[in-house]
């Protein structure tokens, strides 16, 4: 099992064994492109990944999960891990993320216009990630605040478990709009959805971090180093992230 | 040799009789014809596994047959040819199931009152109480069936069937688990009920005494086949075949052939050396018959007795003798015939020398007590 590889110090083997990476949900759309490039450039095996929310991954790592590398948009969770002595290095800021409005149909309004639209259309709903634990949810709340849309009337604001789900609500029409990370929608071709960037001044941008964990072995370090390269950043920029 | 009681094509609608005609090709195989008039109690008798319960269940509408025609109370209940099959509930049958089939979660009283139709709650309670009293169940009304003895359960089943004011009564061995004393009380209650009710009643039982005491007519069934139906007296005193005689529990059956017959008597030859004389008959000499000797026709005789115009005298030795209260049941090994003879003698007529196995004994057989069953007629 993956667990035993952590103790395996043999160089040759290390080249063969994949790194075990914990990825927060916000990396879901981005990761396949990164992994492809990594495998192609280094010839190393495709890393083993485990997706979950930052909260769950952190809990797992705190309780002995055999992850070697942790990527998350939630800086607080990384600090928590560092405090518990679970990290091997300082956290590293990979890139900054922005928010976009995903709007069902044409003529996406700006956030300030959204207020009046909501007055007109009582059943209009907007979905965001849960601000209690998702960083993009917090950013979305800030944006809504700044647009004077807080507090929204009851039932207008849907808090999904994570950003993916918020977007899904908009995709299948359960919500009319979603305030989601740009990475989710940048390369997303859905004719029904119109994407509009949110004014970057209206919220605090979300920084995606990387940290090496205690269990990290050679392949993980290799991967970690590669993720810090400009090539990796270029790919991330393709998804709407910007340099930190 | 089934009786032709097939319901006629055009039936008088005012005929409230129960007509049953059933055939089944697959197990349980059936070929049954029977009839029971309103007010009549028909005893359905046959060996274990002969299909008695199946017939009752079919009349109640609980079992399907390949071909069946059942009429009751002036209505057609089943006519497979016309795909006519009245629902169980609409047949209004009062039935005692062989295994009681009480409602396990209901009290004794509820078991009975649930079967009473179209009355107020108070009336039902009262009718149920009265039937439970008549079946000696007073005091146990609140018990669940699981807290009753076997005979008590059976009496609840009987009360439930009787209380329902049915259009036909189907009783499947309803007294088998009840003691003699209670049984007699139940016989009386059933007799009382009959006076007030003009419905057909079918009683399955293994007890010939019960048949004689309760039933008017009798239908014999064997391997799913009705053998004979007639009045109880008729069937018991003149069984149509050896098989029927055996079913009725007759033990003194002898294969014989008619050797001689004239206006005063008929002579039967048993196994070559012994001849019995019976009443005159129209049997041709040479006819093969089964002789049935009624136990009451047999009595003790002196060693010196000889055949006369009224009696045959046979000699033998006692094989065994069992005391049955104030009577003894004696099995005699006859000198001349290989089969033994069984009969009962009141105790006071018997000297102790008679009872010991092996002691010589002579018996009188009354001519009028000899019945010849024509073997060539029977199946």
């Amino acid at each position, binding site marked *: 099992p993956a667990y035993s590889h952590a103790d395996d110090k043999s160089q040759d083997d290390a080249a063969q064994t994949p790194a075990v990476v914990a990825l927060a949900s916000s990396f879901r759309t981005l990761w396949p492109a990164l992994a492809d490039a990594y495998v192609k450039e280094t010839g190393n095996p495709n890393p083993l990944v485990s997706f979950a929310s930052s909260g769950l991954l952190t809990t797992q790592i705190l309780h002995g999960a055999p992850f070697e590398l942790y990527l998350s948009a939630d800086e607080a969770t990384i600090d*928590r891990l560092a405090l518990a002595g679970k990290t091997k290095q300082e956290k590293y800021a990979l890139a900054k993320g922005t928010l976009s409005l995903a709007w069902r149909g044409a003529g996406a309004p700006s956030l300030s216009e959204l207020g009046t639209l909501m007055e007109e259309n009582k059943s209009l709903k907007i979905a965001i990630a849960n601000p209690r634990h998702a960083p993009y949810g917090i950013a979305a709340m800030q944006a809504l605040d700044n647009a004077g849309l807080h507090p929204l009337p009851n039932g207008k604001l*849907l*808090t999904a*478990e994570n950003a993916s789900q918020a977007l899904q609500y908009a995709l299948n029409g*359960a919500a009319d709009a979603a305030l989601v990370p740009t990475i989710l929608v940048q390369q997303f071709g859905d004719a029904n959805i119109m994407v509009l960037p949110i004014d970057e001044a209206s919220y605090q941008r979300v920084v995606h971090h990387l940290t090496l964990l205690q269990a990290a072995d050679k392949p993980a370090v290799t991967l970690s180093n590669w993720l810090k390269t400009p090539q990796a950043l270029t790919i991330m920029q393709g998804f709407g992230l910007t340099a930190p | 040799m089934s009786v032709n009681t097939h319901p006629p094509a055009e039936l008088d609608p005012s005929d409230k009789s129960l007509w049953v005609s059933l055939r089944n090709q697959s197990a349980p195989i059936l070929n049954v014809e029977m009839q029971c008039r309103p007010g009549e109690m028909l005893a359905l008798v046959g060996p274990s596994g002969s299909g008695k319960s199946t017939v009752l269940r079919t009349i109640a509408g*609980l079992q399907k047959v390949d071909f069946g025609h059942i009429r009751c109370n002036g209505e057609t209940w089943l006519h497979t040819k016309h795909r006519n099959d009245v629902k169980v509930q609409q047949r209004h049958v009062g*039935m005692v199931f062989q295994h009681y089939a009480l409602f396990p979660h209901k009290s004794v009283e509820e078991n009975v009152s649930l079967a009473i*139709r179209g009355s107020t709650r108070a009336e039902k309670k009262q009718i149920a109480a009265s039937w439970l009293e008549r079946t000696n169940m007073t005091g146990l009304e609140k018990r669940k069936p699981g807290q009753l003895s076997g005979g008590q359960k059976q009496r609840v089943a009987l009360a439930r069937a009787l209380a329902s004011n049915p259009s036909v009564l189907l009783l499947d061995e309803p007294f088998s688990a009840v003691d003699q004393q209670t049984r007699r009380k139940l016989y009386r209650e059933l007799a009382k009920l009959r006076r007030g009710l003009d419905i057909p009643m079918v009683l399955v039982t293994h007890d010939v005494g019960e048949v004689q005491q309760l039933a008017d007519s009798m239908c014999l069934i064997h391997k799913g086949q009705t053998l004979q139906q007639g009045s109880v007296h008729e069937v018991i005193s003149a069984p149509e075949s050896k098989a029927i005689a055996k079913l009725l529990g007759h033990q003194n059956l002898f294969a014989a052939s008619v050797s001689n017959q004239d206006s005063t008597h008929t002579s039967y030859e048993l196994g070559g050396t012994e001849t019995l004389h019976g009443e005159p008959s129209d049997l041709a000499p040479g006819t093969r018959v089964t002789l049935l000797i009624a136990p009451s026709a047999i009595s003790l005789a002196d060693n010196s007795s000889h055949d006369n115009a009224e009696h045959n005298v046979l000699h033998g030795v006692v094989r065994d003798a069992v005391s049955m209260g104030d009577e003894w049941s004696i099995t005699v090994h006859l000198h001349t015939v290989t089969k033994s003879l069984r009969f009962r003698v009141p105790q006071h007529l018997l000297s102790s020398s008679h009872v010991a196995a092996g002691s010589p004994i002579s018996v009188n057989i009354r001519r009028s007590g000899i019945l010849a069953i024509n073997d060539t007629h029977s199946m």
Partner: protein
Amino acid sequence: MSPFLVSFKLAIWTTIILLPIGMLLGRWLAFARFKGKAWVESLVLLPLVLPPTVIGYYLLLVFSPESFSGSLVAQWFGQPLVFTFPGLVVASVIVNLPFAVQPMQLAYSSLPLEVREAAWVSGLSSFETWWHIELPQIWQGILGSATLIFSHTLGEFGVVLLVGGNIEGSTRTVSIAIYDHVQAFDMQSAGWYSLALLVLSLAALLVVRINTHNKAGHA
């Protein structure tokens, strides 16, 4: 409305709606003999096989007011089903179907035929037979179904989260609330909520069970 109220309301509604459905289906599967029976029995179990969130996702597709099916449903219920309490109930009913059918089928199949026959002979109609004879004897099955449905609805989380949308006061159940606390590392709140949920549901289960035990009289 507190998440506890939402949860218990949801559990009670789901149980009430599912019991008759489970009874009918379970009775049919116990008594009927037909060719595709194994198929029906297996199909009934399928709501268990997919992960709740995935069922939730598909239900969302079906219920979404934008879809054809969803608009029909919305017309029928007078309102779209997503993000409303009635929607939660419908989703919960679908997910809990196996728990409604299985114990009922078991209970029905241990009912002896002869006792029902005696009821018919006694003139009891199908309905009366059901009411007087079957119902009191499948009590254990009903109780089993009800407690399984009730407990599972309280703990259910994936479907409810997706179809309900975690709206405070109308679709946020305790389960979701606890989950949110765990995600936000508010372990103390999560612990208290969990404890309260456990204690309350234990109390509810106990009340039901002790009452029915007394009623059934253990005879």
